[in-house]
């Protein structure tokens, strides 16, 4: 029996020896371990000798990058779990990378530990499901804007580029006033229009979709940055309408930021997108009033 156990060990050692592959890439070695991750990859461990006798062992950020590529967002809760997992194996999880720094005598243990972290962290793949709820809404916005009875003749243009102080931004749709009351208006109407323009000129109204994506606050900041970046430009005073999709996925601070950055916010619940075609003209009239 004892000899059988020894034989099993020897066979396993031979198997592991054959299954472990090593490649030299630039200034580090990449070890391919036989452990398979849950998303069906072989775990890769990157080893770099930083100074003689001291090594940095990590997963090359592959685990977090693969989770992201497969639609798994590392939330604060998941981040805490990944940090905890790393700690259990004597590693750290910082900036999306499992890592251990060690001396030569602990190198093998570090390689195995990082391999385990890289394997176990992919268990989030098991709970991942496609998301079918979100519906395209740009065509609904366009329909709503065209249906809007503006107090002036208008032209709706999609994807309008505006240049801010720092960068360029794209507004999904802009309603541009044409010739005020339009060509069919009487001379008197035009005179009235000129007076009105001096008092309260018609300005183009920009409508932009703000989707929560994985991180609503980040998206809100992006929208807020656009508003901030347009200050001091000719686009600063254009009324901004933010159509916020997947309302249920927004946190209050994120939503508050959008409210502060837009003239009017239209939050839309998932499954309620069709209401936009009716809602948008009403809200545009409020903006233009």
């Amino acid at each position: 029996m004892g000899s059988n156990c020894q034989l099993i060990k020897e066979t396993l050692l031979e198997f592991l020896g054959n299954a472990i592959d090593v490649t030299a890439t630039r200034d580090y070695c990449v070890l391919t371990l036989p452990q398979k991750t849950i998303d069906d990859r072989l775990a890769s461990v990157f080893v770099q000798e930083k100074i003689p006798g001291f090594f940095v062992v990590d997963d090359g950020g592959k685990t977090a990058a693969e989770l992201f590529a497969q639609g798994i967002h590392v939330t604060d809760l998941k981040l805490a779990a990944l940090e905890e997992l790393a700690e259990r194996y004597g590693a750290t999880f910082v900036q999306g990378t499992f890592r251990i720094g060690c001396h030569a005598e602990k190198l093998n243990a570090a390689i195995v530990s990082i391999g385990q972290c890289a394997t176990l962290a992919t268990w989030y793949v098991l709970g991942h499901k496609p998301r079918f709820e979100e519906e395209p809404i740009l065509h609904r916005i366009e329909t709503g804007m065209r249906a809007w009875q503006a107090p002036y003749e208008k032209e709706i243009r999609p994807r309008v580029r505006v240049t801010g102080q720092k960068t360029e931004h794209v507004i999904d749709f802009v309603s541009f006033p044409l010739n005020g009351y339009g060509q069919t208006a009487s001379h008197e109407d035009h005179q009235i229009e000129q007076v009105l323009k001096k008092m309260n000129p018609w300005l183009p109204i920009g409508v932009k979709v703000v989707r929560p994506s994985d991180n609503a606050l980040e998206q809100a900041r992006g929208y807020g940055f656009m508003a901030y970046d347009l200050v001091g430009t000719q686009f600063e005073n254009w009324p901004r309408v933010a159509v916020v999709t997947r309302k249920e996925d927004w946190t209050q601070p994120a939503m508050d930021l959008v409210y502060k950055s837009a003239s009017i916010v239209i939050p839309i619940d998932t499954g309620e997108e069709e209401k936009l075609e009716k809602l948008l003209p009403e809200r545009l009239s409020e903006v233009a009033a």
Partner: protein
Amino acid sequence: MASNNFFLVPQIVADDKYFDVSRPEILRDLRAPAGKFDRTEEHETKDEYNVDFRVIIRLNVNCQSKVPEGWTIALKLHNERIDGVDWESEFTASDGITVHGWHRHQYSVRKARSIQRFQPQTSMV
């Protein structure tokens, strides 16, 4: 409720897709500490019977790792990767050959998973 549009994957992958973003903007996001780019767009396509469809697609790039082998790019539909490129030290391609390096992942409509790995193209090696 939006419908399952995975049957459109082959067409979406084959289509020219437009993302309203410039390369400098992508680079700006990738050079930030988070090292990630995330953009969602609506895309118009047609099914095999020439019926129009609108879908929401998402482009994700992750260059957070200091090691280029840890970078990924993915095109997603319904928050599922339908196309993309990443690096693996060793993998079995869809034709059964064991290869390594940069390669493409594509969604398998039949298996309902992003699992088909293709041999690295010369330009990717």
